[in-house]
């Protein structure tokens, strides 16, 4: 038990390997910034198998199981939804470099990692993220862990692929503020990138393109897999992985009183549907209509995509705009009574599983304990030692109330 726990604390494995690699590179190439000589990795990240045609295919323990109608949802020993994979090691690695490089933003003030910081559960510890020029966004940055299994993206489910999603923040005037033309110009002027794109897309006439930026970011995000939590050990049959309190929490979680697992369905802990649950906005903020806009449908007013709960302990605060500081507050919301936080005059078609569970304080504690067993960051990718553009990194760890 103790040792099993230990395993999950060793988040540095992948990080240190990358660190070693990059330190080595920097030593042999001291003129890194002007005369770039970065070799992209030719091996896949952990959990991926390299094929003869240089593609990385995902392997994970849930591939031992099936799921009903290949839906990728169910119970403990259930297959996951189909993952996005098949990228080359070089594409994944280039995606990683781009991900951390502030060159992607119009004024070099943010990288993807600014809001999706691997040290903060690929989020940023903020209720609402801050974009270019201090623009406060209307929603929080979702975690990227296990997004390879998703079929819809953004809180309001408005994108259906990584590629579609990436265009949002890159070219939104309030997020990274870039334009395709300016992004191409910046990448072309950063000496390192020409060679890097050539390595990643060797057979293309013009490897440096917006499409390949997007493809690389997709490749990198598809490698962010977290499936080795203590919960997973329990699911695969090792029941000692969870203590009595955590198992009690699992049973509250899947009980039909709390009904958490009806939407946060294992093994991904989301059923990927839109749900209207009626959480309050932060003080003074207008109602976010959510998926009403995406689907142009009143009945989805205030609806948001059910988020995964994997690594949820790392991504406080909670809900689409961060109203709840702690996991406990977030869990408590569900026992406050159907619609208790919906203001008068606001007409929401609340989800049928939003009920009156009347959970005890002890049960809420158990739920929180259980959710903490969903943490696993053992395959966290390393932060590059330096951005290929030579720009300083822009991902700070923000302070947040840890749960």
């Amino acid at each position, binding site marked *: 038990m103790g040792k099993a726990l*230990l395993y999950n604390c*060793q988040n*540095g494995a992948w990080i240190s390997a990358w660190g070693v690699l990059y330190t080595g590179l920097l030593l042999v190439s001291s003129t890194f910034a002007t005369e770039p000589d970065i070799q992209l990795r030719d091996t896949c990240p952990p959990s991926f198998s390299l094929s003869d045609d240089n593609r990385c295919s995902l392997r994970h323990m849930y591939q*031992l199981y099936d799921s009903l109608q290949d839906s990728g949802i169910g119970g403990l020993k259930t297959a996951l939804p189909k993952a996005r994979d098949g990228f080359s090691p070089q594409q994944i690695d280039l995606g990683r470099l781009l991900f951390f490089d502030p060159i992607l933003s119009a004024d070099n003030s943010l990288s993807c990692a600014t809001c999706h910081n691997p040290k903060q559960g690929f989020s940023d510890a903020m209720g609402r993220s801050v974009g270019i020029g201090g623009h406060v966004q209307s929603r929080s940055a979702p975690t990227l862990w296990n997004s390879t299994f998703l079929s819809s993206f953004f809180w309001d489910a408005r994108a259906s692929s990584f590629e579609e999603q990436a265009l949002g923040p890159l070219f939104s005037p309030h997020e990274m503020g870039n334009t395709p033309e300016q992004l191409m110009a910046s990448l072309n002027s950063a000496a390192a990138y020409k060679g890097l794109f050539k390595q990643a897309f060797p057979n293309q006439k013009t490897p440096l393109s917006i499409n390949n930026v997007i493809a690389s970011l997709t490749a990198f995000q598809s490698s962010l897999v977290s499936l080795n939590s203590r919960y997973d050990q329990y699911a695969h049959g*090792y029941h000692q992985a969870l203590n009595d309190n955590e198992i009690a929490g699992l049973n509250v979680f899947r009980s039909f009183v709390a009904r958490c697992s009806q939407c946060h369905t294992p093994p991904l802990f989301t059923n990927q549907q839109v749900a209207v649950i009626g959480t309050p906005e932060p003080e003074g903020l207008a109602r976010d209509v959510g998926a009403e806009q995406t689907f142009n449908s009143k009945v989805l007013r205030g609806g948001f995509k059910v988020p995964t709960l994997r690594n949820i302990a790392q991504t406080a605060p909670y809900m689409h705009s961060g109203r709840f500081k702690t996991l406990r507050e977030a869990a408590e919301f569900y026992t406050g009574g*159907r619609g208790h936080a919906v203001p008068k005059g606001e007409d929401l078609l609340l989800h*049928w599983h939003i009920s009156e569970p009347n959970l005890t304080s002890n049960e809420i504690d158990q739920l929180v304990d259980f959710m903490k067993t969903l943490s696993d960051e053992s395959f966290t990718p390393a932060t590059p030692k330096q951005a290929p553009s030579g720009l300083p990194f822009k991902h700070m760890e923000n302070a947040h109330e840890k749960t």
Partner: protein
Amino acid sequence: MKKLNSLAIGLAVVTFAAGWYLGGSNDALTITSSAGGKSYAGGYVDEQATETASNRAVKLRTTEGKTHVVNPGDLIQAAVELAQPGDTIQVMPGTYSETVYIDKDDIHLLGVIVEGERATLDGLKTLNDAILYSGNNIIIENFKIIDYKGNGIMSQAGNNFEIRNNLIIDTGIYGIFPQLGKNGLIEHNVVSGIADAAIYVGMSDNIHVAYNEVFDSVAGIEIENSRHAIVEHNHTHHNTGGILAFITPGLPVKDTYDVIIRNNFIMDNNTPNFGAPGSTVAGIPAGTGILIMAADDVVVEGNIISNHKTAGILITDHGNADNLTLDPESDPNADGAMILDNVMLNNGYDTIDAVRAFALTELHTGDIDIFQIGPTEGSCIINRHRYKTVGIGDFTDCDFTNTNDIENYLLAGGAEPRVIHPSERGEIAYLGVCTGCHAYAGRLIGPSVQEIQALYANRPEALVQYINAPTPMRTDYPEMPAQNYLDAETQLAVANYILQVGN
């Protein structure tokens, strides 16, 4: 058809599909005998369909494991924890207040009935669910379950299950609720006083619900977002709605089709709706015998449907139902409804305004046996003249008269788990778990795979022993955590894999 007289019914024992002229009338009335003729072929195009049907969902054991006996004062869960797949747990009569959860395969959990005295699970109105399971090949029999807040018996993703001969009284939301499972039998249960559905089959395939009595609940038996289900020989009475087949939009499995509802006694389901606000069943009009909402290919045959004030059979699309969310991925229409011979008595005598108003558009007043609203394609009926109907003008005459060819949709061989070759299992575990700390060449957190290969060449068992209980071998490396959570088969597979893997 409204002119039909009792004489015509008296004469209905006629040759199959023969047309008859009633004396003096110009109407050519087709009377179809369901005693012969073609059978519905079923909704299966799967290879498994050609396998012989079974009347069991759990394969008989070739060898029995241990039997664990639980006596009053003991915890049933303690026996579950001791039990290995293949074991049986016998629970002696008495009262037990606990939530039993089975996250293992092949466990038979049997209450023992002694002179009518049952093993009783009592939730004391404080416990959530009585029995939860996620394993495959689970049997749950002979319990009495009372006063839980959540569900009586619930599963997520268990395949091959049998839930039989349980008495479930006032347990909250659902009496019996298998979800996301394949190949299950629910029979001979008596379920009552449930605030949602007495028996609720959700997002499941190959289900057989038979010989149950369900009453005093909002919904009697529900088949929701499920396929290849048969509901037969049940007695459902004094609920708000008797038997339901429908699609709830907004769920991850999007359709319901190939459902046969036959030979049930569906009576007096007029109980005022006491479903929780917002629940799907809260929209069922009291006095509904059978409700088909957006489900496709539902056969209704041989039921006695009597004394329902709204309608005997109510068929609707999503568009005409209230309080549903939007789901562009779900087809909102109820297509392929197939109404074969049923006995329908005294239905629709005090229907709801919406139904009455629509009936008036067809100049229909008075009782309603069958009510259909919303777009529908491929629906059919035989002997339509027998019933008081609204909205079935587009229904054709079915080209079959019975479902005799279909005994059930259970899978004789069971829904088998994925067959995983040991080498594939080894690769999955190696990449999915080990590569976080071990690279093929060079140090990561632990030593390289090449070093491990040199150390354990041809000795996979020794490697298994090590990963189960590692002892520090290198002072300059962190201690390896035990990988004892992997089962023995996976441990050996991964050891073999590691010892031969290249790059």
